[in-house]
C-alpha cells in the first residue's frame, strides 16, 4: 500500500514537471489561450513546480480576461470565466508552495489574486451578484494585510472593496458614508506603496475624497 502511494506521488510529480515545462514553453511563445486550456491539477503542498505551473496559468487567464474587455473585442462575455480561472489558479498557487510562503512570493501571488478578484467583481451584472464578489475581494485583502503587513496591496484593495460597497448602495449619505470612511481609514493606514501601486493608491484616495465631499461625510 505504501509503495503504491509513493509510486503514485512520484508519477504525479513527474506529471507536474512535464506540465510545467510545457507551460513555460507556451508562456515563452506568448500563447495565452493554450496555457489557459492546459489542465493543471496539482495541489501541493510544498510543491515548487506546482506553484510555478499554477502561477503561469493564473497570469495567462488574467491577461486573457483583460484583453477580452477591450472595446470592440467581441469577447467580453468570456471575461468572467477567464477571471474565475485566474482566481482559482492563484489560490491553488498560494496553497501549493511551502507554508508559510516567503513574504515576497506571497505578495506577488496576492497582487495577481486581488486584481483578478476585482476584475471578476467588475463583471457582475447587478448588485446581488456584485456584493458577494466584492466581499470576497475584501476578505482576501484582509488576509493579505495580515500575511504581508508591510505591503500596501491589502490596504489598497480593502479600500477599493469598501469604496465599491458604498457605490453599490443607495445614493444617500447614511448608506455611503460608513464604507467611505472605512476606505479612507484603510488608505490612511497603508504603508508606503511601491512605484507600481502608488498612482492607483493616490487615485483611489482622490475618488474616495470626492465621494465623501459629495455626500458631505463627516
Amino acid at each position, binding site marked *: 500500500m505504501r509503495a503504491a502511494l509513493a509510486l503514485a506521488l512520484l508519477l504525479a510529480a513527474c506529471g507536474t514537471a512535464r506540465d510545467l515545462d510545457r507551460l513555460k514553453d507556451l508562456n515563452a511563445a506568448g500563447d495565452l489561450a493554450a496555457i489557459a486550456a492546459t489542465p493543471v491539477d496539482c495541489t501541493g503542498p510544498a510543491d515548487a513546480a506546482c506553484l510555478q505551473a499554477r502561477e503561469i496559468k493564473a497570469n495567462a487567464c488574467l491577461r486573457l480576461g483583460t484583453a477580452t*474587455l477591450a472595446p470592440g473585442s467581441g469577447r467580453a462575455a468570456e471575461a468572467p470565466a477567464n477571471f474565475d480561472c485566474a482566481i482559482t489558479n492563484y489560490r491553488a498557487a498560494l496553497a501549493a508552495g511551502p507554508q508559510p510562503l516567503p513574504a515576497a512570493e506571497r505578495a506577488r501571488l496576492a497582487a495577481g489574486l486581488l486584481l483578478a478578484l476585482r476584475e471578476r467583481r467588475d463583471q457582475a451584472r*447587478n448588485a446581488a451578484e456584485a456584493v458577494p464578489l466584492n466581499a470576497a475581494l475584501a476578505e482576501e485583502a484582509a488576509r493579505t494585510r495580515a500575511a504581508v503587513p508591510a505591503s500596501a496591496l491589502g490596504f*489598497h484593495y480593502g479600500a477599493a472593496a469598501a469604496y*465599491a460597497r458604498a457605490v453599490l448602495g443607495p445614493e444617500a449619505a447614511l448608506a455611503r458614508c460608513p464604507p467611505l470612511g472605512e476606505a479612507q481609514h484603510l488608505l490612511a493606514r497603508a504603508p508606503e506603496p511601491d512605484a507600481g501601486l502608488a*498612482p492607483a493608491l*493616490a487615485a483611489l484616495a482622490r*475618488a474616495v475624497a470626492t465621494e465623501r465631499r459629495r455626500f458631505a461625510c463627516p
Partner: protein
Amino acid sequence: MPACLLALLLLPSPVLAQQLIVGGAAGAAAPDTAWIVGGGIGLILALLATLIVLLHRSMRRSAEWCGEPLPGANAADVQEARLRAFALVHGMPLGVPEGTVRACIGLFIIILGVAAIVFQRQLGLGTTGELAGLLGTVLGFYFGTRSTSGDRDAAREAARAVAERTADAASAHRRADAALAREGEIRAEAARAAERDAKARVTLASAERIASNARAIAEAVAAVAPDLPLARTAARVTTLADRALVAARSAATDAGAVAEAASRASALVAEISGDDPLAELVSAAAGGLSGALGGAPGLLATVGGPLGLAGAVLTGAAAAFRIGTEHYRRWVARVLDRPYGLDLYPEGLSDAATALAALEVSPIFRRVYGETILAPRDLAAARALLAAALSPEAAALVPAGSGALRPAPVGEGSGFATTIELEEGIHQFRRAVLERILDQTDSTPVTVPLPTGPIAVPQPALRAAVDAAREDRGGAAALDHLAIAGAKLAREPGVDIAASLARAVKETT
C-alpha cells in the same frame, strides 16, 4: 697759555716775540734780514690762511650742493640733507678736512724752526733753546690735544653715525609710511575694482535671467500664434534675447570684459523690455474673455476679471505641470476639453465602481443609462461604458455599445436624442471621471500674481468661467491661446509670468 698764543702770533716779529717770552731785548740783527724772514713767514701764513679759506668754501659748497633740491625729493628730505651737511662741516676743525690744521701748523713750525736756526745769527738770537722749548710745548699741547681728541672724534663719529642711523631710520619710517599709504590706496582701488566687478556680474546675471525669460516667453508665444503679428514681435525678442545671452555669457570666458559685457547686455535687455509678446497675448486674450464673459459680471468678478482668468489659465497650467506630467496633461485636457484616452489614467483607477460613481453625476448619461446600469448596479456595463467614453472613438463606441454596454443609438427613444447630446454626455462623463482622478492639490485655488497683489482663483470658479468663456468663439480662441502658451511656459520653470501680467495690465488700462 694766553702768553704762549700771543708769542705764537708775534712770531713774524721774532724780536718782539723774544722780548715777550724771555723778557730780554733782542740782539742786534740786520733789520733787512729780519724783515725778509718775517715777511716770508707772513707770506707762508697768508698762503696757509688762503688755503684754509679755499678749502672751507669748497667744503661749504659741497655741503650746500648735497642739500640742493632734487627732483622728486620733498622739503623734509632736503632740510634733512642740509642739516646733515651742516653737522658734517661743523664737526670739522675750522671747517676744513680732518688734519688740514695740523698739517698747516706742522709746516709752520718746521719753517719757523728751520728759519730760526738758519737765521739765528742774523736775528740776533743768542740761543734758540727757549724758542724750541716753547714750540715743543705748543706742538706737544696741540698734537697732544689732537691725539687725546681721538676718543672725542670717535664719540663724535659714533654720534654722527647714530644721527645718521636715526635719520636713516626716520627716512625709512617715512618711506614705510608712504608705502603703507600707497598700499592702502592700492587696496582701496582694488576694493573699488572688485565692487565694480561684482556690480557688473550682478547686472550680467540679471540680464541673462531676463533674456532667458524673454526668450522662453517669445518662443512660447510664437508657437501659440505663428500666423499672427504677435509672432513677429516674438521673433524680434528672440533675436535680441539671443544677442543679450551671448553678451552675458561672453564675460564668463573673458574676465576683463565683464563691465563691457554688462553694459552691452543691459542695453539689449532694455531694448527687449519694450516688447513683451506674452503681455500682448494676455492683453489680447483678456479682451476676448471680457467680451465672452460680459454677460456674467459676477462670474468674472470671482476670477479677478478677464486678466485674472487669463492669468489663472497660464499659472494653473504651470502649477499642474510642476505636480507631474500626467497631472498636467489631465489639467490641460480639462481646460481645453480635448479628447483623452485611458493612458491618462493611473492603472487601477478604471474600475467599475468609479465609473458607476461618475455616472451618477453625469445628467445625460444618467438619463440614458439610469435604468440599465445605475438601477441594477451593473458593474460590467459601467466598466464598458468607461472604456468606451474615454476612448478617442467615444462618439462611435458609446452609441454602438460594446460588451456588457448595451447600444444606445442616436435618435432612438431610449438613446441619445442628437449627436450634440451624445457629445455633451461624453463630455459630462469625462469631466466627472476627471473630477475623481485629479490631484487633491487641484482643490487649492490658483494663485494669480496680478500687479495689484496676488489673487486666489478657486478651481470651481475657474472651471465655471472657462465653461462660460467657451460659449463665445472669441473667448474659446483666447482660452486656447492661453492654454497652449501655458503648456509651453510650464516647461520653463524659471519664466516670470508676473512681469508679463503687470505689463498686460498697463496695456489694457
